[in-house]
C-alpha cells in the first residue's frame, strides 16, 4: 500500500493576525506558518496504517514558507518520502491546488489501485472550499471527509466519519480513494527537535517541479478585516488573586455558589 499525505502550512492563529497593506490578505511578514492541525493527524493516521499493515508513506507539499520544516518533521516521525512541488503557488485556491496534486499523483490520470490519499478535511483558510473532494473528483476516485478512523481491508477500507453532536457513521470505501482526516486514531506522535535536526542532516526532500493548473481562483477577496467586538465580555481586571475573587463574586451573584 502506498499512502500519500498532502500537507499545507497555515497561519498560526495563536499569533496576532495583521491585515496587509492591500487590505485583501494577511500581512505575510507577520504570519508564523504552521502545519494545519488535521494534516498533523493525517500524517499520524498514515503512520499508524503503515505500522498495522505495512506500506510506504509519502508526504507531499506545495512549496511555501517554512514547509521544509514540516517535511523534515514528517521524515523524523518515520515517513518514507518527503516531496516538495516547486512553483509559485501563492495565488492558488483549493481547485488549483487539487489540480497540481492530481497531476503529481497520477500524471496519466489513473491512481494506482493500492493507493490511499490522506489529507485534512478542511483548513481554516480554505476560502475556496475543501481540496479533498476536488482532488478525488479530478482523480475519479471516491472521497469521504471528516474521517476519524480507518480500518484497512484488501481492496477497500472501512471509515468512520463524524456528523454532529457526537453522532458518527461508518462507510465502506473502495481503493484507491481520497480521505479527509479530521483526527487520527491516536494523537500525533511527538518527535524531539534533535531527531528533526538529524533528519535535516541525513534525509532529503525531493523537489519536483509542479505543473501549473488550468484552474485559477474563481473569486476575489474584496476586503479582509478584523471583526469588531460585538457583545464584548465584561472584563474582570487585576491580578490572579483579584480575578479569582471577582469570578467567585460573579458565580455567587448567579446563585452558582
Amino acid at each position, binding site marked *: 500500500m502506498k499512502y500519500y499525505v498532502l500537507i499545507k502550512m497555515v497561519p498560526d492563529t495563536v499569533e496576532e493576525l495583521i491585515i496587509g497593506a492591500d487590505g485583501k490578505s494577511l500581512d505575510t511578514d507577520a504570519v508564523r506558518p504552521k502545519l494545519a492541525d488535521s494534516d498533523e493527524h493525517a500524517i499520524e493516521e498514515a503512520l499508524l496504517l503503515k505500522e498495522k499493515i505495512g506500506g510506504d508513506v509519502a508526504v507531499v507539499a506545495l512549496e511555501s514558507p517554512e514547509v521544509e520544516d514540516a517535511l523534515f518533521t514528517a521524515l523524523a516521525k518515520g515517513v518514507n518520502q518527503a516531496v516538495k512541488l516547486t512553483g509559485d503557488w501563492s495565488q492558488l485556491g483549493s481547485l488549483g491546488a487539487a489540480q497540481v496534486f492530481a497531476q503529481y499523483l497520477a500524471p496519466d490520470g489513473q491512481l494506482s489501485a493500492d493507493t490511499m490519499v490522506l489529507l485534512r478535511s478542511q483548513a481554516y483558510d480554505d476560502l475556496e472550499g475543501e481540496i479533498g*473532494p476536488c482532488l478525488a473528483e479530478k482523480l475519479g476516485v471516491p472521497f469521504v471527509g471528516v474521517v476519524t478512523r480507518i480500518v484497512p481491508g484488501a481492496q477497500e477500507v472501512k471509515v468512520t466519519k463524524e456528523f454532529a453532536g457526537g453522532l458518527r457513521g461508518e462507510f465502506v470505501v473502495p481503493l484507491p480513494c481520497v480521505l479527509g482526516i479530521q483526527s487520527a486514531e491516536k494523537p500525533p506522535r511527538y518527535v524531539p527537535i534533535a531527531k528533526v535536526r538529524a533528519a535535516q542532516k541525513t534525509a532529503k526532500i525531493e523537489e519536483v517541479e509542479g505543473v501549473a493548473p488550468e484552474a485559477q481562483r474563481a473569486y476575489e477577496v474584496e476586503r479582509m478585516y478584523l471583526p469588531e467586538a460585538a457583545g464584548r465580555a465584561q472584563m474582570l481586571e487585576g491580578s490572579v488573586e483579584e480575578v479569582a475573587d471577582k469570578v467567585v463574586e460573579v458565580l455567587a451573584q448567579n446563585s452558582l455558589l
Partner: protein
Amino acid sequence: MSQGILIWTEHLRGQISEITFEMLGLGRQLADALKVPLTAAVAGANVTALGSQLGMADKVLLVENPALTLATAATQASVLQELLHQEQAALVLVGGTNVSLGVGTVLAARTRLPYINFCKAARVEDGAVVATSQLFGGKVLADTRLAEHRGIISVYPGAFPAEAGRRAGSPQLIPAAVEVAPSPVKFVQFIEPETGDVDITKQDVLVAVGRGIQSQDNVALAEELAAALGGAVCASRPVIDQGWLPLSRQVGKSGMTVKPRLYLALGISGAPEHWEGMQGSRLIVAVNTDPKAPIFDGAHYGATVDALDLLPVLTEKVKARKG
C-alpha cells in the same frame, strides 16, 4: 432563465437539519432583495414529507431516491448540478456542515462557479451578492463579491437564525427526475454518541479546557475546580485530539452541544466550531491570555490572566466560599 437561488436541503435520519432553515432565512432575504425565486431541493428517501416543511421556499424540487441518502459529495453534487441546470439558478446555498462537506466544492469544480466558504453574513449590493466569510478560527473576516450573484455559498452553521427560515404553509412541491450513477461508497451504520463516564449535556456547571491548558497533567487542575463547583470538565477539539480527555467530553461542531448554567472556558480561543456547541450556555466566563480571543466577543465575563495560574487560586476560593 430564472437567475434564482437554489438551496440544497440537508437532512439526517429523516429530520431536516437546522442549517437548512438557516439557509432558507438567508435565501429568502437575498431572493427578495434580488427579486428572484427561491427554490429548495430535497433528495433522498421520503422527500415529500421533508419538502412539505420548507414553506419559506417558493417551490421545492423533490428527488425521491433512497440511494441518495448519505450519498457521497460527488453523487449529491451530480443531482445538484442537474437541478441547477434545469432551474437555471444563479446562486446555490449549501450547508457548511460535516454532512454536506464537499457538495458545493465538487459542484464548483464542475461548473467553475465561484465558491465561497465559511459564510457568516451576506448582503445584496449593486445587484451582486457580497458574502462575508469568517476565517482563521473567527479571527479575520473576508468580503467576497459574487458578480451577478452567480456562485456557490457554503453557509456556516449557527451564523443565521433558523427561525427566520421556518414558515408554515404548503410550498409548491415538484417531483424532479434526476438519474445518478450508484455511489461506490456504501453506508454501513450510525454510531451513536458515547456518553462515557459523564454526560456533559446534563451538567449544570462545566469547566471547559482548551489548548491553553498545555498538558494532560494540567487537566487535573480543572477537574479539581469542577469538583469544587459540582460540575464536570469538558474540552475543545485540540484537547480531545491530543487524547487528554475522551471524545464524550468534546464540545463543539462535531462534539456535544451543551447548555449549562455556567460554562467556564479556560484557555479556549472561541473558534466558531467550538462556539457552535456552547453558545446556549446561560453564563459564560472566559479566561484567555489573548485579549483579542474571539471567545470574549460572546462571553458574559472575561479575564486575560493565565488559566493555569488562576485554576488553583480559584479552586481554593470556591472551596472557601462554599465552606
